[in-house]
């Protein structure tokens, strides 16, 4: 009996201590959120992306373009900006994005965030940023529910400069139907929000068009796909493979060839990496075109290449430049409205939606939709991998 009471007391004390600690954190965050910051001093922008791990290529590319945007755009807008990194390796799941969010929220000088790069990370941390009044402008999270639908997962602090899977899914499916004339498609998801949402979107569009589908589901930790390849029907024309780890798309495509299956791999934006996924004949979709084909971007590309010698322009970096540009403009607007002293971080959040950019890095001009926090009139692009491993824009 005594032991039971003692145990109950320990639990009670532990709960009180934990509650106090949590309350302390909340108070600290609230203080950081409402603390006034001078626009003449250095303000911070966080960038949350996988800088290491299987998707490290993506994060490094985004970081290099965000750095270039800060370097070239902040000064003309009258701002001093420091970019601070938050590494979120995809192998560690979405929870790490929440840890990074708490770190950024506690720093009163962090007035905006680029990312988190993955949909899972964005879902995990969006409420934390919203409660702190920090806007997040996202260059790559495409899950539809982040901005719309009855089960909306994103907070009002979530904005993205790339279209969502509500466009990617149907775009990919229609390409398969109209250009590849598919009869049967195998679709794989990886039991996490990004791939499940995208796989569902593709599957429903294909089914509506009368295409036969086979759905498979692999844990996100799968390394050997042999058993999944075995389950791909011999007469399947395409395997839709929305991974966030391009080497896995390469492995899957190789194992299809190994088993003599004729199906082509169709990857999503997460597998768009010419250095890792290069089996000829495969397809990938992405939210950004090859900007080297946009004449207005020539000077910008040359400038970025000077800062990043030997690196080639990919598809994930330019939207990160765009997201940084949007955020910098919002900060500048908020600073102007608050007469040089940001009263609270929420003032920047209020300005994001009003940002307009005439010469958008991805072509044309940029503004947000009035209905959602998505870009207006954005679209997805489809590439086919050539025999030399290069990506050719086909739609």
């Amino acid at each position, binding site marked *: 009996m005594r032991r039971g009471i003692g145990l109950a007391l320990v639990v009670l004390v532990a709960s009180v201590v934990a509650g106090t600690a949590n309350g302390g954190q909340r108070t600290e965050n609230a203080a950081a959120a409402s603390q006034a910051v001078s626009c003449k001093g250095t303000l911070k922008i966080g960038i949350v992306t996988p800088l*290491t*791990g*299987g998707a*490290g*290529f993506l994060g490094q590319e985004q970081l290099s373009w965000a750095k270039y945007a800060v370097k070239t755009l902040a000064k003309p807008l009258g701002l001093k900006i420091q970019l601070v990194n938050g590494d979120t*390796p995809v*192998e560690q799941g979405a929870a790490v994005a929440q840890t990074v969010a708490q770190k950024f929220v506690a720093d009163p000088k962090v007035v905006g965030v680029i990312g988190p790069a993955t949909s899972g990370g964005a879902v995990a941390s969006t409420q934390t940023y919203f409660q702190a009044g920090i806007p997040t402008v996202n260059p790559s999270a495409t899950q539809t529910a982040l901005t719309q639908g009855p089960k909306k997962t994103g907070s009002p602090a979530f904005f993205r400069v790339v279209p969502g899977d509500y466009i990617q899914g149907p775009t990919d499916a229609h390409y398969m139907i109209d250009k590849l004339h598919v009869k049967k498609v195998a679709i794989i998801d990886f*039991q996490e929000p990004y791939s499940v949402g995208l796989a569902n979107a593709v599957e429903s569009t294909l089914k509506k068009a009368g295409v036969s589908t086979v759905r*498979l*589901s*692999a*844990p996100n*930790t799968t*390394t*050997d*796909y*042999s*058993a*999944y390849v*075995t*389950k791909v029907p011999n007469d399947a024309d395409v395997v839709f493979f929305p991974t966030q*780890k391009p*080497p*896995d798309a*390469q*492995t899957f495509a*190789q*194992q299809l*060839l*190994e*088993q*003599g299956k004729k199906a082509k791999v169709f990857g999503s934006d997460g597998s768009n990496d010419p250095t*890792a996924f290069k*089996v000829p004949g495969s397809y990938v979709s992405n939210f950004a075109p090859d900007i080297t084909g946009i004449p207005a971007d020539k000077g910008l590309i040359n400038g970025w290449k000077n800062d990043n010698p030997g690196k080639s322009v990919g598809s994930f970096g330019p939207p990160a430049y765009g997201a940084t540009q949007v955020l910098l403009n919002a900060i500048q607007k908020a600073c102007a409205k608050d007469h040089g002293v940001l009263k609270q971080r929420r003032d920047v959040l209020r300005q994001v939606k009003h940002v307009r950019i005439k010469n958008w890095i991805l072509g044309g001009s940029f503004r947000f939709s009035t209905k959602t926090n998505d870009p207006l009139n954005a679209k997805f692009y489809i590439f086919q991998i050539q025999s030399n491993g290069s990506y050719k824009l086909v739609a």
Partner: protein
Amino acid sequence: MDTFIQLTVDALTLGSVYALIALGYTLVYGVLKLLNFAHGDVFMVGSFIGFGVLQLLGGTSNPAVPVWVLLTLVTLAAMAGCAGLGVAIERFAYRPLRDAPRIAPLISALGVSFFLANSMQLLFGAAPRNYDTFALSNGALYLKGFDVGDVRVPLLRVITIGSAFVLMILLWLLVNRTRTGKAMRATSFDREAAAMMGIDIDRVIVFTFVLGSALAGAAGVMFALRVPTQVSIGFVAGLKGFTAAVIGGIGSIPGAMAGGLLLGFAESYTQGYVSTKWSDLVVFSILVAFMIFRPQGLFGRADIRKV
């Protein structure tokens, strides 16, 4: 029928890698009665050594030597590197605790596992390393082979399964037909009595670690020839190898071989005929079933003590 044949080929590939890992567990347990939980990470290090040597030899797109020489050198380097690592682990993490309570080396093994995984991540990052064997001889290792019915068994699978079985046979011969093997068996049976008969116990234990770790190195390369490797693979591979060793009867060499293959078949057929989502559930349910109904495993002996 084609699906069955394909799944059987998958099972043999998977099972032979599991068997090689399980042999490392079983050898060390047999001699030291220690569950070497760092063994999965030795497997991971082996796959990274193989990757490094492959790059030194020009990579798969521009190899400096013929393909078969390349694969042999990569495997031998990984085996040698892991053997050295095994010796170091035994010397610094286990030998000082040899006479300590059994929980101490177990905790030390877990510590070594974390140390290896985190050191590798600090040194080489968490990005996957792809051997890209598809680039060798224009994909010949994948596209050539022999046919069973309508199913193609590619050269890479033949090499993986064949090499694993050759290594297992060599190990069996070494343990059963040589003086060193006899010393290992004697040490496993009764360490103190073996020492009294003049067997150098330290030497036998070090040799056991060399053997087990070298097999893990070979398994690491065989695994990474087909799929990208990364620092996190050691944990799951180690867990599967341990399961295989327990199912076969930990301490039994034929048991580890059989356990590995059984695990490969269970995993592959479950993925093929039941559900891809359920394979780990089935595999670990088999482990639980063995622990309850036949704790000594398939080939192990029940531990009878005089009271």
